[in-house]
């Protein structure tokens, strides 16, 4: 039997005390710490961070499906035997943007059908187009190019190609050994003018590229949005002299609505109008004795808009961007009023516009109206003249610029609505790319923000919006690569709305910035009084245990 060790008659209270201290420590560490950690944790729903960082390296391939139709005798016979086949022309767009963009023209060559042969052998372009227009509506983004014989009289003799208003074009063929490659190059030139060129994409991505040139074309277009509100206002500063009437409802119905319905794929539009009396321009026009008229110089034009804007009521409208078109009828004392360009010559349209805001046109009353009648003179506004200018301004504000035509190309001009279908396609291409760029930037910066600040709560619906946005971006990229422009545009719109909704969710507010010294200041008064006795008793227990282990060595 081992003898009891010296000094080991430990009283039971001390043993109980030791056990109690050990239990306290155990509960504090095993239960308390995890519980504290769990309850002070913020709820963060999981996000697809890896996929979001993968979006940065996304390669955008924009495919334009082109159908090239060869009539008889447009190319040599042995080349005709090789039809139908497909040629792909792919080119990378050289932009300094992190996403690589490749533009791919997929040309499907085929022989002309009978009715197409018949249509293209008619006398004039209009008849040919009327006959060709019968088959089904072409999908957005696709083009059809007809190749006619070299000496055909459908086009004027010196013109090599023709671009029509409906996604069709006509190109002259050639009887030459290298017929296909020469014709192929001409087709590419025409197709590029009708769909995608570098400046269209550069304008769309203007915000995301480093700014080396501030060209006005690039900074003008409206940003892509789900809808727009267009307001037409008539400003009459002098109702005592002019009793102005304008048939705005009719004009909107006849001229603006067709234009907007042609553009309807790009967003929802709503139109309203108002008449403002006693609304003056903020600038006093100067008198020009040479022409005995009043003029507004170019450098005073920027100051015109702001004093008027507060009266337009545009802030009460919807959350969509607002475009204002103002028609100003100058006062009798300042009539006639012309706008001068920087060379001092009066501008033909008597109108000017401001990017992302709208346009102003000055309508001078015909001086003959003053002769017989007493004031106020009844003025009927010629809506055709006015709408011609406003619709041209609307096109410019949307960024639908004149395309760069290849050499010797005849351009028929838009149809009665004022917009050709392939101009709409160009807009949709540009908008899709812009939307994808915006959505990607938003998602990347959101992921960065949430990763950096670890105490922002991420709710479930924010997470689901992010997932939806990522899926939409990927879908849009796929649809663009397969050439379905309409569904790609819709997917890109959805990507932008979801990513914006996730980014601007009101719950993502990081208000709680805790510098480290403040964190210590909060926790020390809570934990220190509790932790010090436990730690000290643990230390004491440990030292005593070590001492009691050492003792047997000393004895033995």
């Amino acid at each position: 039997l081992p003898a009891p060790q010296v000094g080991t008659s430990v009283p039971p209270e001390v043993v109980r005390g030791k056990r109690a201290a050990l239990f306290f420590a155990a509960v504090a560490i095993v239960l308390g710490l995890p519980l504290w950690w769990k309850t002070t944790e913020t709820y963060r729903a999981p996000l697809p961070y890896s996929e979001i960082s993968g979006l940065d390296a996304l390669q955008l391939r924009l495919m334009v499906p082109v159908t090239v139709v060869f009539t008889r005798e447009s190319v040599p016979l042995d080349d005709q035997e090789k039809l139908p086949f497909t040629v792909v022309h792919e080119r990378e767009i050289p932009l300094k943007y992190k996403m690589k963009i490749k533009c791919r023209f997929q040309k499907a060559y085929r022989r002309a059908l009978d009715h197409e042969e018949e249509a293209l052998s008619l006398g004039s372009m209009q008849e040919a187009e009327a006959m060709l227009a019968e088959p089904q509506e072409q999908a957005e983004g696709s083009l059809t190019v007809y190749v006619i014989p070299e000496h055909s009289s459908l086009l004027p003799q010196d013109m090599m190609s023709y671009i029509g208003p409906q996604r069709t074009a006509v190109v002259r063929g050639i009887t030459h050994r290298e017929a296909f490659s020469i014709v192929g190059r001409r087709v590419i030139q025409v197709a590029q003018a009708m769909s995608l060129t570098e400046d269209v994409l550069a304008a769309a991505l203007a915000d995301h590229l480093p700014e080396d040139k501030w060209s006005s074309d690039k900074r003008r277009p409206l940003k892509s949005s789900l809808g727009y509100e267009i307001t037409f206002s008539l400003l009459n500063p002098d109702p005592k002299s002019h009793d102005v009437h304008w048939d705005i409802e009719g004009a909107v119905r006849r001229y603006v609505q067709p234009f907007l319905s042609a553009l309807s794929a790009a967003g929802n539009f709503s139109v309203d109008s108002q008449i403002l009396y006693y609304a003056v321009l903020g600038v006093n026009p100067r008198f020009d004795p040479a022409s005995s008229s009043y003029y507004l110089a170019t450098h005073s034009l920027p100051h015109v808009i702001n004093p008027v804007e507060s009266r337009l009521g545009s802030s009460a409208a919807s959350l969509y961007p607002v475009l204002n078109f103002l028609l100003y009828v100058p006062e009798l004392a300042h009539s006639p009023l012309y706008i001068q360009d920087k060379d001092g010559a009066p501008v033909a349209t008597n109108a000017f516009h401001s990017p992302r805001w709208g346009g102003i046109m000055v309508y001078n009353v015909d001086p003959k109206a003053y002769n017989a009648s007493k004031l106020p003179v009844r003025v009927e506004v010629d809506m055709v003249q006015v709408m011609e200018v406003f619709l041209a301004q609307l096109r410019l504000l949307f960024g639908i610029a004149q395309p760069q035509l290849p050499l010797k190309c005849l351009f028929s001009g838009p149809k009665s609505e004022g917009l050709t279908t392939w101009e709409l396609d160009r807009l949709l291409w540009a908008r899709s790319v812009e939307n994808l760029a915006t959505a990607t930037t938003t998602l990347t910066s959101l992921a960065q923000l949430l990763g950096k600040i670890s105490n922002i709560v991420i709710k479930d619906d924010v997470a689901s919006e992010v997932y939806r946005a990522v899926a939409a971006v990927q879908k849009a990229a796929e649809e663009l690569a397969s050439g379905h422009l309409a569904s790609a545009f819709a997917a890109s719109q959805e990507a932008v709305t979801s990513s914006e909704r996730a980014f601007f969710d009101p719950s993502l507010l990081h208000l709680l910035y805790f510098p480290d010294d403040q964190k210590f200041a909060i926790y020390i008064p809570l934990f220190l009084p509790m932790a010090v006795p436990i730690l000290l008793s643990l230390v004491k227990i440990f030292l005593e245990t070590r001492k009691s282990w050492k003792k047997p060595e000393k004895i033995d």
Partner: protein
Amino acid sequence: VCTSRFWFNYRHVANTLSVYRSVKRLGIPDSHIVLMLADDMACNPRNPKPATVFSHKNMELNVYGDDVEVDYRSYEVTVENFLRVLTGRIPPSTPRSKRLLSDDRSNILIYMTGHGGNGFLKFQDSEEITNIELADAFEQMWQKRRYNELLFIIDTCQGASMYERFYSPNIMALASSQVGEDSLSHQPDPAIGVHLMDRYTFYVLEFLEEINPASQTNMNDLFQVCPKSLCVSTPGHRTDLFQRDPKNVLITDFFGSVRKVEITTETLRLQPHLEIMESSYKKDWMDEELVEPLKYAEQLPVAQIIHQKPKLKDWHPPGGFILGLWALIIMVFFKTYGIKHMKFIF
């Protein structure tokens, strides 16, 4: 943004309203201004001249006017709301006038005043915003391209500490005092009983009164405003994050609103629908004939009124109280010393 409450912080409200007034005068419309005032001085029960907020001694300039549009008032001015306005994370029910609807082409001017310290600014006497939160908010604005260029002016004690932590590009910052210095107030007014303005903003306001919308003054002149001899504190500025050279930046780029315009040179060809137009003319004409011609009264020459400078107030004889007090003193004097002393006075 004015962040202080209580009557003795009258000067902060006056500061903010002066800048508001200058900015409106130089052309920025109310729809583009978000004004946050933490307390209502004009209708405060302690204001001896209700519905006015003065910024000059002798009540020369009433900056409250009658077209002030305050977007966030009183207890709505909190750090949370301020950050929400900046970052755009606003609940969907917020009206348009309370939102910052800027895009990547907008130049934004932010003016803050109140009580501050090293690295923070006090809101409503109960919470603070730190310079790190502000820098993070600006970074989020930059990520979402909510501004093109940003000018940040702060008039508080130790104001320079608030802009130390900015790290987003295209920000220029001005402060009324360096770290460790206090910004002092300018002039007390005996009738109202409080200090009316802070020195820095007072001199900035004087500087801005000289500017008109077509002016070509640049930022370097704004940096020279309020030297140490006038302002006691040393104003500071920070331009390293800004890409353009400050001497090429016009004051009106931030304080005024000059839009880019282009002459329209193209028109669209439209075919008029002639027959329809004829019939609609006839219909309008017939309706109009039956109505009596309207008479228009003489209207006010609005343009002249807008551009008027505020006139100096005329001198008024002292108020009844002062007169009564003097009368009492004279009466007591003569009562005590007897009426025979009157001949020595007259």
